[in-house]
């Protein structure tokens, strides 16, 4: 009989679970010679083995598997072998087989899950965790994410100790069932390289948790608190029947909601400096007034707008550690009708359901990325088929697609999104394989370019490999590779960079340029907690920097001459209220010249500044090329005899000019003037702050203690002193009359 027909019959019997008949059919066949036919037959034997395993007939399964392997190696046979090994309890062997399966079928989520389970059973928790995270990436469906979250949480105690910088403690409080929120966050955090620990407040008890000084919330010592109060719990009358009240009463009720939430925030922020992610209130899908809602002088839409904007204003003025989760926007992205499954709401009070959880987790990750100082600073872009359509080297500078018509307009829209990022303080660079002249012709002269050379802090337009270019860009800009995002349409370039430079976030653009803008807007990489004037100016500052460097490369003469000619002016003063957000931002992201890397948030900095027992200094630097702005921070703790330097950092933009010596001289003088006899400070070694390692010894401090990564240095103020370099002008305010 024809092989194909026999295999069809065997498959039919398989579906009917008539396994003996399958066997008989396959046994009756002579092994074919053609490799493709051997593989087909091998696959059916393997499926028979699988079916025997499900029936717990392991001996028959082994035999069928042997038959399969004698003919050819197939992925189905690896799958069957994996299941057999698992049934026998030899889990490492099973894992090895599953690894073959995922190598052949990398998109098979259930295979990754099985691999993870076998690693776990074989006592390999780290490999299991990696496989679970891969499964979640490949199959981000609801049930899979929930399963994986549970498994990861169970594995956590057996995983190796994570680095302190990756740990984040997250409390989740609210008025509905939020267990699934925790699950999605567990997976999202781990995929981003964070190690989360959670406190999930008991159902509906957010107020009790907030007011209980001695309770579990504060004992948990969260870094971040998510507060998701459902509107129907907080203001049921507005939620369900706002039009039972007259307009004035509705306005009052809306204002009252803002007051009540503000009170809650007040109680919370009194007791903790943790960042708070507060949900605003999503307007329900249907208004009780139906289509008449907006004709009403103060309909339901207006009520929710009043509440949400009132809340935003209060948070802006009074609560610097609170950040808002814009529910309408996030749920809008997901599609509001996917947010709540009514069956889940009525059965289990689950207010945030399957459709919205992924979008919500993404939104949380935007804040968490900024809070854990993992936001990236620089977007590096390819040119051909990235910023414009076509290849300028082949199509000529006038032949690239860029303009009002498709597909050129998609590239223009993409450039506009990039420009928005630039205006928010993201640094831009180019990494392109091209003749420089061709590419610059488009960059400088094409009328429809939105981005121009002056928008880019660095340009690598050459024929070198793109990974080396990225290293060179990072060096030129004095930032780490882990601060870069690399965007390219070419899968081969992306694969190269991903394998050579895993710290760079490589984003491979899809085939269709219409989708580019969406990909960029959806990236979680550039969010920050504040936006300062500094951020808005950054693009221009980098253009200045390029000019300065070009001048430097033309200068000859001694180092001292060069430094004097720069005309550096350093201003160091106690921080005022305006400086504090920028100070907190610098504290969050400065890694290299940072003596202690203590990540104080805005509220903590304010507390240091307000207290008479401590002081916060802001350092501004300018030179003949322009004003670098607020680029240094010092925080000191003052006791009558001893001043201690808690924090001292300087942006890498202004290193190498003696600014840090000037800072130290100001602190030494201030400590002496206050009557102290010792100035002390720690140097806490991290992977990135080697540039600061010799700071204290270089200025005559003596090491008095060393514990692990921390060295404590001390200067006797009665005998020691630090002088600011002569080539810079130091400006400090006159001491206040005390």
């Amino acid at each position, binding site marked *: 009989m024809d092989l194909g027909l026999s295999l069809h019959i065997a498959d039919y019997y398989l579906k009917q*679970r008539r396994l003996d008949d399958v066997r008989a059919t396959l046994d009756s066949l002579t092994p074919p010679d053609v490799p493709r036919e051997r593989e087909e037959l091998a696959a059916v034997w393997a499926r028979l083995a699988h079916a025997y395993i*499900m029936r*717990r007939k392991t001996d028959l399964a082994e035999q069928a598997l042997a038959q399969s392997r004698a003919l050819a190696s197939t992925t189905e046979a690896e799958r069957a072998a994996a299941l057999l090994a*698992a*049934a026998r309890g030899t889990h490492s062997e099973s894992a090895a087989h599953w690894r073959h399966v995922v190598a052949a079928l990398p998109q098979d989520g*259930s295979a990754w*899950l099985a691999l993870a*389970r076998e690693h776990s059973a074989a006592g390999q928790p780290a490999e299991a965790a990696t496989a679970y995270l891969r499964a979640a990436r490949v199959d981000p*469906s*609801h*049930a899979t994410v*929930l*399963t994986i979250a*549970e*498994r990861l949480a169970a594995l956590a105690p057996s995983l190796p100790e994570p680095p302190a910088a990756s740990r984040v403690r997250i409390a989740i409080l609210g008025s509905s069932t939020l*267990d699934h929120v925790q699950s999605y966050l567990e997976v999202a955090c781990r995929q981003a390289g964070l190690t989360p620990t959670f406190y999930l407040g008991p159902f509906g008890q957010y107020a009790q948790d907030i007011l209980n000084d001695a309770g579990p919330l504060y004992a948990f010592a969260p870094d971040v608190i998510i507060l998701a109060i459902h509107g129907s719990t907080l203001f049921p009358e507005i939620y369900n029947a706002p039009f039972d009240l007259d307009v004035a009463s509705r306005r009052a009720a809306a204002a009252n909601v803002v007051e009540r939430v503000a009170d809650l925030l007040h109680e919370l922020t009194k007791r903790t400096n943790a960042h708070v992610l507060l949900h605003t209130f999503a307007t329900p899908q249907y208004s009780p007034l139906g289509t008449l809602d907006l004709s009403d002088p103060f309909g339901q839409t207006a009520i929710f707008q009043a509440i949400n904007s009132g809340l935003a204003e209060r948070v802006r003025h009074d609560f610097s550690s609170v950040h808002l989760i814009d529910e309408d926007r996030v749920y809008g992205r997901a599609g509001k009708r996917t947010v709540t499954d009514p*069956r*889940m709401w*009525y*059965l*289990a009070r*689950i207010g945030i359901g*399957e459709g919205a959880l992924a979008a919500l987790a993404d939104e949380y990750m935007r804040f968490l990325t900024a809070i854990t100082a993992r936001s990236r600073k620089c977007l590096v872009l390819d040119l051909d088929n990235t910023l414009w359509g076509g290849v300028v080297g082949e199509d000529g500078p006038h032949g690239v697609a860029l303009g009002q018509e498709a597909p050129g307009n998609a590239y223009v829209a993409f450039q506009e999104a990039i420009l928005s990022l630039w205006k928010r303080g993201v640094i831009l660079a180019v990494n392109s394989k091209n003749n420089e002249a061709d590419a610059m012709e488009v960059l400088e002269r094409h009328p429809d370019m939105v981005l121009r050379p002056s928008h880019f802090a660095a340009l690598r337009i050459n024929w070198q490999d793109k990974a080396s270019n990225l290293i060179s860009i990072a060096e030129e800009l004095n930032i780490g590779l882990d601060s870069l995002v690399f965007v390219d349409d070419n899968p081969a370039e992306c694969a190269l960079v991903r394998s050579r430079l895993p710290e760079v976030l490589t984003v491979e653009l899809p085939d269709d340029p219409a989708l580019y803008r969406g990909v960029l807007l959806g990236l979680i990489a550039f969010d920050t907690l504040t936006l300062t004037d500094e951020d808005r100016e950054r693009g221009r500052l980098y253009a200045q920097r390029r000019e300065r460097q070009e001048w430097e490369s033309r200068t000859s003469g001694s180092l001292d001459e060069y430094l004097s000619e720069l005309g550096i002016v350093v201003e160091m003063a106690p921080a005022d209220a305006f400086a504090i957000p920028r100070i907190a931002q610098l504290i969050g992201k400065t890694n290299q010249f940072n003596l202690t890397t203590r990540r104080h948030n805005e509220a903590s900095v304010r507390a240091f500044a307000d207290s008479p027992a401590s002081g916060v200094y802001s350092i501004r630097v300018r030179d003949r090329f322009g004003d670098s702005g607020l680029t240094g921070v010092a925080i000191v703790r003052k006791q009558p005899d001893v001043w201690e330097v808690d924090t001292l950092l300087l942006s890498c933009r202004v290193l190498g000019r003696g600014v840090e010596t000037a800072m130290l001289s100001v602190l030494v003088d201030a400590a002496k003037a206050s009557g102290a006899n010792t100035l002390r400070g720690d140097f806490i070694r991290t992977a990135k702050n080697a540039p600061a390692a010799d700071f204290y010894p270089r200025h005559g401090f003596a090491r008095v203690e060393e514990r692990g990564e921390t060295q404590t240095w001390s200067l006797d103020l009665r005998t020691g002193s630090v002088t600011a370099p002569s080539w810079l002008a130091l400006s400090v305010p006159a001491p206040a009359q005390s």
Partner: protein
Amino acid sequence: MDDILEERICEVVARTFGVDEQDVDGDTTAQTLGSWTSLAHLRLLTNLQDAFGVRFTMAEMTNMTSVRAIEQTLAAKGVSA
């Protein structure tokens, strides 16, 4: 009871709760299987809906706390293996 349907249901239950397939059979209930908690039950319902292409009502969701009950519910909805 339909053997093949029962086998498919057991496979979904085992996969959902991360237990070996040999530990789940027609007699398994939420009481006999430790990992079958009320929150995990919701995951099972999602997996069953995906696997069999059906949607359950609230009442059906509350009742399906054993392999047998799941079989009965699916059969009543016209699902056969």
